């Protein structure tokens, strides 16, 4: 459609407005009509792309939430790693949640930390 409009515009430049006014006006009307049609198509396509993007975002967030919940469900009693408990004082209980292992790093705490670090690393690319 864009090529067609371009061709018609080129044709318009060859027509003299004084000599062939009717033909000039007809062609100009045709160009305007096609331009409006093109704009409508572009708008519709942009809206469709935005909708698809939104759906993909929603699906991604749902998958992310499902993955986190499944990891917490599976590894709630196993610590990610075990450190000497005095290293983590006074927050050893919070860090170890929900494992209850002294000095351990719980899956919940680790997921939150990783989430934040990944968000920071991806920030320049977003």
């Amino acid at each position: 459609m864009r090529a067609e409009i371009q061709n018609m515009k080129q044709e318009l430049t060859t027509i003299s407005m004084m000599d062939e006014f009717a033909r000039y006006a007809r062609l100009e009307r045709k160009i305007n009509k096609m331009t409006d049609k093109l704009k409508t198509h572009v708008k519709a396509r942009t809206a469709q792309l935005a909708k698809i993007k939104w759906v993909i975002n929603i699906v991604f967030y749902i998958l992310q939430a499902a993955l986190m919940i499944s990891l917490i469900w599976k590894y709630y009693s196993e610590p990610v790693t075990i450190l000497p408990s005095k290293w983590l004082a006074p927050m050893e209980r919070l860090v170890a949640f929900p494992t209850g292992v002294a000095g351990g790093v719980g899956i919940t705490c680790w997921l939150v930390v990783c989430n934040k670090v990944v968000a920071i690393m991806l920030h320049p690319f977003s």
Partner: protein
Amino acid sequence: SSSDDESHTESKLQHEQDKPNSLPIPAVSKRIVLGDSVCNLSGTSDHASGIIELKGDKKDLFSKASELGNDGTSELRHRSRGDLVSEASQRAPRHRLDQYLSRFDEAMKLRHQLMNEKPNQENGNAGEEFDSFRIFRLVGCALLAIGVRAFVCKYLSIFAPFLTLQLAYMGLSKYFPKGEKKMKTTVLTAALLLSGIPAEVISRSMDTYSKMGDIFTDLCVYFFTFIFCHELLGFFGSEVL
């Protein structure tokens, strides 16, 4: 005779001057007679000017009522007091509604103003930009975590050096160029404005909240780096052994 004439003309002049003042009396008496219709007028009218006019008329009413006589006066006063009470009760919710609407208008104006000031953003999470101080903080936290894992963690908690670093950052922040403060226009800020909290309090709270967020981010980076270094040392230590 001349003095009599003068006094007569003076009294005449005074009478003529009093005439416009006395004109309201029949109008006032008409309003007194109408009574209920005046009340209805005040109840149904939405215009403040009508209420103000009525107030003014009421003032005239009270000022002229004493001239009408005792019998009419007491009855008139009882009636007008009743009217006033009913009007006050009707005015109170209207006043609250007006107050609410004015606050809503202010909140919307502020929101539009802030939205016009800030650039358009596609993503809602893209509000934070990394300035030089932010990057300095994050790199400093990562380096500190490496240093703590290598040398310090055997002697004390890993969070102690982190807290010291944060205190140092608070002091160093003034030496770095500050970027423009962008106030996020969210539903929360609009709701807080509507509930009557001053904008300055909201901005200070948001500022404090953002600072706490920065500290949390630093903590996450610090902890992640520490655990990562710990695991790497453990892995390479086992490999060496």
